[in-house]
């Protein structure tokens, strides 16, 4: 009799189920369903746009035009998919690490409706050509973005209350990052949408601030906070250094806040502002090294565990991309490199390496770590593996194609060749980008199926709370 050989090396089944309030489990699941619906929609739009670079006359209709779909792609994956997915995980992590039930489940449920409404309204208006002004990630008109802010504010209150009533003496480091991300984002959105100081170039200064903080004071701290919980949970050991986490936290707040203007190096905005941004961009290496070092040192000695887990590989990839892609960002701020790469497709590669390689991989790691434990239902390990490899392979193809192509574009401009040359030379790289995008999109479909497989039972029988998930 032939020995049965598994297609993939066996991953360990989870055995430490969490005994959690059913209402919270269902709420978290509904956040993830919304998030994943936006992911499928947003990345489908992205893939369609990638194809348009190769076939510019593919589907000529006003509402399918590049200029209308591009902001839909970016805003949907930012505010719809990534934000809702991170909030879903935070809804678990904050009460858990505060050892106190969530202050109000009803409020969190209402916030989901409000945020979904915000994105839906914003997207419908963008389809109609009602763009706030083409400021990247700020394209939703203010009535739509106000609803988003409302959702964020209600979560802030909910989480603050939960933390202030905590059952522990100390505030766990995750909650520093998570709640700070909410507080910072409220400030960022309010400043970005007040029009008084935004005539002429005033808008550009605020845009440098906004597009930068929108990423780095929302997605980065929130997903890092989640990782400070999930990584130790999965490895069943404490984080390597609490102090390194605290150092990274404060430098994130001070350094990162000052570097928004590095998106406008050589633009006619004040030179001192650009120089401050460049200097602190390099300062970010401290934050970056402290954060990544902390995670990698926590993993040290447990890499067998990483290989045997299906969620830890996502987290490992996320941590590596956190370091590489952020370091790349600092490099791009230097005037020498900026001259070569700014305005080219290199920047598109960078934004996907950070948002996808770093943020989204950490989110997937968190989802695969949490949901099976909450619902007691595990998706097929093989399908998680396919999701992982398709997403990673797709991202690498995407990233390398545009980094190489973008560099060639920059060189073509520096050599003073006719502009159209920089378009013609990009065609093969844009084809590879679409290939990478197809892999990524396929992985999202598989992820959606896996999510469906982890759906909570309508009447779950109570599971025994096993040790292991506690920090």
């Amino acid at each position: 009799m032939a020995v049965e050989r598994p297609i993939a090396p066996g991953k360990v089944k989870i055995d430490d189920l969490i005994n959690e309030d059913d209402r919270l489990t269902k709420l978290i699941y509904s956040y993830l369903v919304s998030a994943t619906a936006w992911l499928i929609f947003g990345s489908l739009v992205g893939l369609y746009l990638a194809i348009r670079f190769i076939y510019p006359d593919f589907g000529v209709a006003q509402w399918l035009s590049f200029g209308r779909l591009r902001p839909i792609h970016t805003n949907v994956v930012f505010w719809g998919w990534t934000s809702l997915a991170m909030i879903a995980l935070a809804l678990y992590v904050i009460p858990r690490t505060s050892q106190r039930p969530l202050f109000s489940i009803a409020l969190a449920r209402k916030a989901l409706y409000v945020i979904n409404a915000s994105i839906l309204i914003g997207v419908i208006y963008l389809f109609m050509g009602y763009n706030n002004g083409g400021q990247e990630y700020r394209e939703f008109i203010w009535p739509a973005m106000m609803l988003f802010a409302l959702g964020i504010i209600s979560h802030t209150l909910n989480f603050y209350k939960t933390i202030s009533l905590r059952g522990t003496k100390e505030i766990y480091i995750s909650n520093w990052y998570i709640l700070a991300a909410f507080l910072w984002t409220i400030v960022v959105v309010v400043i970005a949408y007040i029009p008084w100081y935004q005539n002429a170039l005033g808008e550009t200064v605020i845009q440098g601030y906004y597009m930068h903080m929108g990423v780095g004071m929302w997605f980065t701290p929130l997903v890092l906070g989640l990782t400070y919980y999930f990584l130790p949970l999965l490895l069943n050991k404490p984080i390597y250094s609490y102090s390194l986490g605290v150092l990274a936290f404060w430098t994130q707040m001070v350094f990162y806040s000052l570097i928004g203007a590095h998106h406008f190096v050589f633009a006619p905005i004040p030179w001192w502002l650009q120089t401050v941004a460049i200097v602190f961009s390099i300062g970010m290496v401290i934050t970056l090294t402290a954060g990544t070092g902390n995670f990698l040192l926590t993993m040290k000695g447990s890499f067998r565990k990483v290989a045997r887990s299906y969620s830890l590989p996502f987290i490992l990839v996320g941590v590596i991309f956190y370091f590489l892609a952020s370091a790349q960002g600092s490099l791009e701020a230097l005037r020498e490199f900026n001259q070569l790469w700014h305005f080219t497709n290199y920047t598109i590669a960078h934004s996907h390496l950070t948002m996808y390689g770093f943020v989204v991989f950490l989110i997937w790691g968190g989802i695969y770590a949490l949901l099976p434990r909450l619902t007691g239902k595990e998706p097929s390990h093989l399908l998680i593996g396919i999701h992982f490899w398709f997403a990673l392979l797709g991202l690498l193809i995407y990233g390398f194609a545009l980094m190489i192509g973008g560099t060639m574009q920059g060189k073509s401009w520096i050599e003073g060749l006719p502009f159209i040359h920089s378009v013609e030379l990009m065609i093969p790289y844009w084809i590879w980008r679409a290939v990478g995008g197809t892999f990524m999109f396929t992985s999202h479909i598989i992820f959606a199926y896996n999510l469906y497989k982890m759906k909570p039972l309508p009447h779950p029988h109570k599971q025994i709370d096993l040790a292991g998930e506690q920090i």
Partner: protein
Amino acid sequence: MKLNFSENHKLLFSVVFFGFIALSILIAIIPAIEVNSNDPMCGVNTLTPAEFRGLNTYVSEGCLYCHTQQVRPLQLDKVFGRPSSPLDYSYLTPLDQIRMTPAVLGSERTGPDLSNIGNRQPSEIWHHIHLYNPRSVVKSSIMQAYPWLYEIKENPDSNDLVIPVPDEYAPKNGKVVATQKAKDLVAYLLFLKQKPIEGISQIEESTSKNLSGSDAGAQLFNTNCASCHQQNGEGISKTFPPLKNSATVNSDNPDKHIRTVLFGLKGEAINGIVYPAEMPPQKDNLTNEQIAEIINYERSSWGNNGKKITADDVRKIRAEGK
């Protein structure tokens, strides 16, 4: 009260919240107010109602996702005009009660910079043909086509702006007529002319530093002339005249050729055809040396065999004036 961040949530989150507000005021709001102030260009640098409607279309169709309006003080940006000044943007205000000031500076240069497009390509007709289908004038362009900005009319009346789209791209029946929206958008594009600003001048010339003779000429031609006359010198039938086998280009007396490049041409019949688009003057865009390179390239390419000229010939005609 304990002064310990990890045990005192009020302290921790107050520092996080108010500290960030303080940093934001310092790094965003104060500099924004600084550059937001009114300036002497206000009143000069303003949009007509048509240009303003054009700006609206520019934003809602997302032109600014592929085109920058930001000439940096770098050698590689020189081809797009002089370095941008804060004054260039003084016309920008919130579009209406719902929308904010548009971010025309852009972040991506999938297509060329448009800061000075009104000078670089002043032909209204060219812009319409290009918007109707960019590939009809620039073969390898990947720009979005905007046919919905145009109507197809069987019998356009005399008030209609009929667009001479090349046959290959034109509809089988009827004529392409520009809608008001298309006219407004082109009005905004033609508004984008860099005005002279004291203290800001073109950075030093060294474009053709590594090139000589026909290489430099070919490059200058492709950058400045090929969007109408095409890389193969054949132009576009009934829209832009060919340079291949052109009498002016092949004649022994180059004066007319030089004069056309320097001062432009409009409404003149060439081989019995009056072309709808005008030839824009290049005297302010190109130096005598560059014009000589281009003309010599034209006179020695695509089977042409005209007499070569020097920069001095261009200088002489420039001095004579139109």
